[in-house]
């Protein structure tokens, strides 16, 4: 089950006052570093938080990737289309930086989807766990399984979006999610 029948909304993005935010973005596009710094102050928490979860709570690596994300945002500001919220654009850019890093590290060999399915166990997740335990268990997942789980279950992405960004088939994304949940259940003491 991948939640297709549920209609949970994507994560709530902090309210963005259209006029003020848009003015800041326009100033930044025009080269106003002070405006860009203000944008950084407003959005760094969300960008850093998402990256941190994708890199297994490695704070040093998350800081490095967050810096990279904002440098790229500065370089790509002129390509920002104002029809979408700046926070959404920036968050997506930050996630992509983390995913590119994940792809570049090749920490995990591609695993056959069928093997993932058989290894993952049942579909319904497990008994309740403390948030800290859950965070640690997520951090210990293999990188690709962790990325899919975080993007789908935490960030609210759809499988087609995940598969596009991670360069995998939609079926592989679903299999990785299934695997991740099974591994989490084991890690937290549930049945395999």
């Amino acid at each position, binding site marked *: 089950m991948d*939640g297709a029948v*549920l209609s949970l909304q994507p994560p709530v993005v902090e309210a963005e006052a259209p006029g003020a935010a848009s003015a800041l973005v326009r100033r930044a596009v*025009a080269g106003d570093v002070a405006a860009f710094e203000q944008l950084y102050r407003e959005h760094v928490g969300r960008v*850093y938080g998402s990256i941190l979860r994708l890199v297994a709570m490695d704070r040093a690596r998350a800081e490095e990737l967050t810096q990279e994300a904002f440098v790229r945002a500065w370089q790509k500001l002129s390509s920002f289309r104002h029809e979408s919220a700046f926070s959404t654009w920036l968050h997506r850019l930050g996630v992509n930086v983390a995913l590119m890093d994940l792809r570049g590290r090749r920490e995990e060999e591609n695993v056959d989807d069928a093997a993932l399915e058989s290894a993952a166990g049942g579909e319904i997740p497990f008994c309740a766990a403390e948030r800290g335990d859950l965070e640690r268990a*997520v951090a210990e997942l293999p990188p690709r399984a962790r990325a899919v789980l975080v993007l789908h279950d935490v960030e609210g992405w759809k499988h087609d979006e995940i598969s596009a960004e991670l360069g995998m088939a939609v079926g592989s994304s679903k299999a990785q999610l299934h695997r991740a949940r099974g591994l989490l259940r084991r890690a937290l003491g549930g049945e395999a």
Partner: protein
Amino acid sequence: MNTEFEWRSEMRKLGGAVEPARDLWPAIHARIGTAPARRRWTRPGLALAATLLVGLGAVAFAWRVQSSHVKKSVPDDGAFAVEAAPENLVPDHPVLAAAAQDLDDASTQLQQALEQRPEAVFLVGLINRTNSQRLRLLRQSANAG
């Protein structure tokens, strides 16, 4: 947590903002410096640059025909590699000097475009053509002088 809904509700709680332990802005600021955000190079911009090159080439060619009787004071034997063309040399004649300035501007913009799209081989060709035109202007200025 027995249902998908409960599970995903719990997982969503893992989301949200996390402030980094230190201020990352100084390092970001150092990397972006005070340079303005990079201008995006568009197809119309590239077309304009190409048109400019063709136009300036025509001007240079006409000037060359006019001044072909003048002695050569700069060797025309290919000894000037394009990469070695001195950028700070400006032709004496105001028409050629203005053309040289336009070529310098075009070359700068093309190089910025190449930084953004390193895979765009055609930009390398345009840059080489620009530098070649620039060098030709210098030679013609010297010949005419």
